[in-house]
């Protein structure tokens, strides 16, 4: 019985392993929650592209925001924020967000500087994209070890 229980415990432990991380510095993509936008993003940590930020170290999110519905549609404004849903709070700092609307064609380019995750755990990054009519959210999770 003891061996059986121990085996189950080990199997469960195996199952709780996180999946293998993607290559560092890769651009990721996420579709906004109503399907209007595709948001590509990557993190810049200590001046270099990185997979995850460092706890209590400021970092930057680089963004490319492109309409999935209408190539001529542009993001007019971006809001970038992050929260820890399990902890019922967000960041302690306000990042500085800049947006270049992309000019002729292509995606709008944005940056959020001064992001800071002050705790380990699951963070939800929220990008709110304002097209002048509605503000649509794109989101993804970052697990900070």
């Amino acid at each position, binding site marked *: 019985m*003891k061996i059986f*229980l121990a085996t189950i*415990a080990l199997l469960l432990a195996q199952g*709780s392993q996180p999946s293998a991380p993607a290559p560092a510095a890769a651009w990721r993509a996420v579709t906004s929650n109503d399907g209007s936008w595709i948001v590509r993003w990557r993190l810049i940590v200590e001046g270099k592209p990185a997979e995850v930020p460092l706890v209590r170290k400021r970092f930057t999110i680089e963004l490319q925001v492109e309409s999935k519905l209408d190539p001529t549609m542009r993001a007019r404004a971006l809001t970038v924020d992050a929260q820890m849903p399990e902890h019922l709070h967000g960041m*302690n700092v306000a990042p500085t967000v800049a947006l270049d609307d992309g000019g002729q064609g292509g995606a709008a380019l944005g940056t959020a500087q001064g992001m800071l995750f002050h*705790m*380990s755990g699951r963070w939800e990054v929220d990008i709110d994209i304002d097209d002048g009519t509605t503000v649509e959210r794109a989101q993804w999770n970052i697990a900070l*070890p």
Partner: protein
Amino acid sequence: MEHRTSIIVTLAFLCACEPSVQLTNSQVNLIKEMGFPGAPPLDPTNRYADDAGAAGLGHALFFDPNLSRNGEISCATCHLPERGFTDGLALNLGLSQGVRNTLSLLDCAHQQWFNWDGQFDSLWSQAHGPMLHPREMGSSYEHIIDRVRGEPILCNQYEKVFGLLPQPPLTESQSETIVANLGKAIAAYERKLVTGRSPFDRWVERWKQVGAPSDLAGVTLGGFSAAAQQGLATFTSRGECWKCHVGPLLSDGEFHALGAAPRNDLIADSARFGAIAKLQSNRYRSSGAHSDAAQGEQAKIVEALVARSDQWGAFRTPTLRNIGKTSPYFHQGQFATLPEVLHFYSTLEGAVTMDHHRESVLRKTDLSPDEIAGLLAFLKTLDGDDPPIQWTINPWN
């Protein structure tokens, strides 16, 4: 995932009649990060942080009661070397009784924020607080500068490090600069108050040497008992201690409202909520004129901080290192002993709710007596070797 973790730990305990502990991968990863912290990080805001002369001056200042208004209170009055640089009192006692517990200075140079509420963002900035506080040393710029100028030992040490003291009458800017320098000297001294390896650190190093196995059977070391192993497992799982007490300092360095009710005779404390405004208006903040890295990382963080009402009553997570030397516990010394602390975490008895609609991060864990015993055994292994003796003696004696 939490449920799964609970099952794993439960199963692991079921099959562990022997003093053996089976860890999950997440526990293994947590423990790997909990080892000896090593040397404190650099402090770019204080160019004298690691200056030997500044540390010597700071050492003298730290033990000098003549800096206080009545000539009887020094930093060491509340930060007693023989008590882990605390005073053993629930509430600090300077010129009069204060409203918060005295924090230990051991390993304080690892911190990002200082005081219970983080109203200071550097060690040198914090050093001014008690000197000028009317309930602590009750001093003034004028009194402090006069003392340094009038005491040849202090004056010589100051001028070796910072250059000649300007002659009176001093401008406000000159006075501020002198006092800033004195704070930087005290900080340089306090950076010397680092502890050596604890029994837990030695055990972690051995455990890592053998490959950080999830099965702790066989990873034994004197000073880190089987009960402590069990406590470590509880600490990193069901006890949920790890949610805030993580990393080498066993602290996330951040601010949390745990709901511990203030002592009967004290007003409720807004803590981090009120501290951010104080910090951002402090002339000695990292982004201020006296900082040596006013555009640095810490300065930018300080300027970007936002106060939110959910930070009301949030206090900094203290390190658990040297916890055996630093009773009583919590921001007003609400708990005299570690068993009392663990009883609170286990039951949340007497806790103030954050809002009667909102879940708190903290929840009752209903720890068993065995689990509490294990946690106590583990916590007792966190006391490190004392700092070098030369930094703990009073140089004026």
